């Protein structure tokens, strides 16, 4: 199979190859490579307003960032969401996937269909659904509580600084659980049934099997998905916060990307916005690196 396609690599090949790859290279460089370098370049400039001229500022933007309490708050909130949501989503996804592949669950295709549904909805729609759920007077939660006469339990889900981040975290878990469930299920379906059968003969129960067989064998899938998760939840948190709370009340639910867009578009501080962008990039890169190192295990084969 590794034989090179000899007869294809003949005269006139170069022109054909060039015609095939040139459009892709041009578009890729223009709309992905150049803008990526621009993020780093612009973070070193002071640039206010589209009309203004950028002036070189060195690391001034980054020095300002370190003392910007709004930024620190947004950073803390982002880390909070990453930690809480990734733990709940991945643990939940893993357990459910284990139950659905190993346990005797009827209609598991139906559950999978329902649980994956939020993954095909846009984040704006998810945000709109949760604004309906959390609505202070007539939302699904408070409306139901009021109707049942349990007014005392109702909360200002998106207005109370103590619970707002949990409300957002819940919406994020709701959105992403199904994706990770399906991902882990497919990893688990590759594990040969004989392994489970053999261990059952040795007297291992379902819990023992989950921790001794399933978990080690899907470990690599888990690692990759965790790194993936960091990138996708930074985005998810951004649109959810933007749509649900706008970062309020009083900056208490601000997250990094939302703050970046506010600085760039609302405040017209493009340089400062891009410094935030660079900080997020470095943070997610470092987090991915640390997680990748910390979770490294010898890859087990079956």
């Amino acid at each position: 199979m590794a034989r090179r396609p000899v007869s294809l690599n003949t005269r006139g090949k170069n022109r054909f190859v060039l015609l095939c790859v040139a459009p892709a290279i041009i578009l890729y460089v223009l709309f992905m490579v150049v803008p990526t370098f621009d993020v780093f370049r612009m973070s070193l400039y002071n640039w206010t307003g589209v009309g203004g001229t950028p002036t070189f500022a060195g690391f001034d933007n980054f020095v300002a960032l370190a003392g910007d309490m709004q930024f620190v708050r947004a950073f803390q909130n982002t880390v909070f969401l990453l930690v809480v949501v990734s733990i709940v989503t991945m643990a939940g996804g893993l357990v459910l996937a284990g139950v659905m592949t190993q346990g005797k669950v009827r209609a598991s295709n139906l559950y999978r269909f329902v649980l994956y549904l939020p993954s095909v909805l846009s984040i704006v729609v998810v945000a709109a659904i949760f604004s309906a759920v959390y609505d202070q007077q007539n939302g699904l939660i408070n409306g139901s509580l009021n109707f049942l006469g349990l007014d005392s339990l109702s909360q200002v889900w998106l207005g109370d600084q103590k619970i707002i981040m949990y409300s957002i975290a819940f919406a994020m878990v709701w959105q992403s659980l199904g994706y990770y469930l399906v991902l882990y299920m497919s990893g688990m379906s590759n594990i040969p049934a004989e392994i489970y059968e053999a261990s059952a003969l040795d007297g291992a129960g379902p819990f023992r099997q989950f921790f001794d067989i399933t978990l080690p064998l899907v470990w690599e899938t888990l690692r990759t998905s965790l790194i993936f998760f960091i990138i996708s939840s930074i985005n998810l948190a951004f649109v959810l916060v933007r749509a649900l709370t706008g970062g309020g009340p009083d900056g208490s639910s601000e997250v990094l990307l939302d703050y970046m867009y506010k600085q760039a578009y609302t405040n017209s501080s493009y340089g400062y916005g891009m410094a935030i962008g660079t900080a997020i990039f470095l943070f997610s890169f470092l987090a991915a690196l640390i997680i990748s190192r910390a979770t490294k295990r010898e890859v087990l084969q079956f």
Partner: protein
Amino acid sequence: MTTTTSAPVPPIVTPPSSSVPPGPTSRQRVRRRRPVSWISNLVLILISLMILVPVLWVVMASVKTKGEFYGNPWALPEGLHWQNFADAFVDANMGPYLLNSLLVTVVGLCFVLIIAVPAAYALARFEFRGKSILETLLLAGLFINVNYIVIPIFLMLLGWDKALRTFMPSGFFIDNLFVLGLVYAATSLPFTIYLLLAYFRTIPVSYEEAATLDGASRFRTMRTVMLPMAMPAISTAILFNFLSYWNDYIISLSLIPGENKTLQVGLLNLFQAQRAAADYGRLYAGMVIVIIPVVILYIIIQKRLLQNVGAGGLKE
């Protein structure tokens, strides 16, 4: 399971013959004790309800009259108040936005296929200088997060418009749905090329050799021999790209500041306006308009979609 990369791996579509892993059937599985199965079913039912109830509740509320939003939230609507949809379509502009979204999605899909299919084919089949550099560069693109680079893209297009001002005073690049489609296509190139590349490599080269011997040109061979054979991978690419273009919010928000908004931006505006006016009916109707095309598509292609999310894991 020998993957050592820590990169987000694009879904790898394998040929139909091997696309379904030979997973154990339920009969082969070891039987579980009853209590576990009872509890797990209960938990799954509860979680499924937690997902479904809010969605169905919004769909139900979309046909309620204004007065019905107060009081018991679980009450069924007394009648079908379609006026909400008329309001959303016409007053809130969701009708035109729907057409814009359709246009942008179709344009983006056309661009990405026309550009990515030949590039992936050339990378899979030909040896040329700089090939490995190109492949590495594209792989790196999988790590680039579109959310960071939207602002530079916006400023770049704005600069181009400024340069063109003498010829086109109203601008060309900003507020242009075709340019938006092109940007969608460009930002999904790494993913799409990798998906197709992996598939092309699984197709034996003898088919093309036969076509070449019959005197077909390279372009013709690609179009008439490879394209039909790559349909499973191409349709997967269409599927995932459709979802990402249709659901995109942030690129569209930045590049279309004018009237020609897409559905997602329109919906967010609608729902920020609702917060001030408490006009729930129109908002919920708008949401249903945004959800329905995606849910219909999801129901039709769920099997293929769910299978490929799996393939997006770590099969090498």
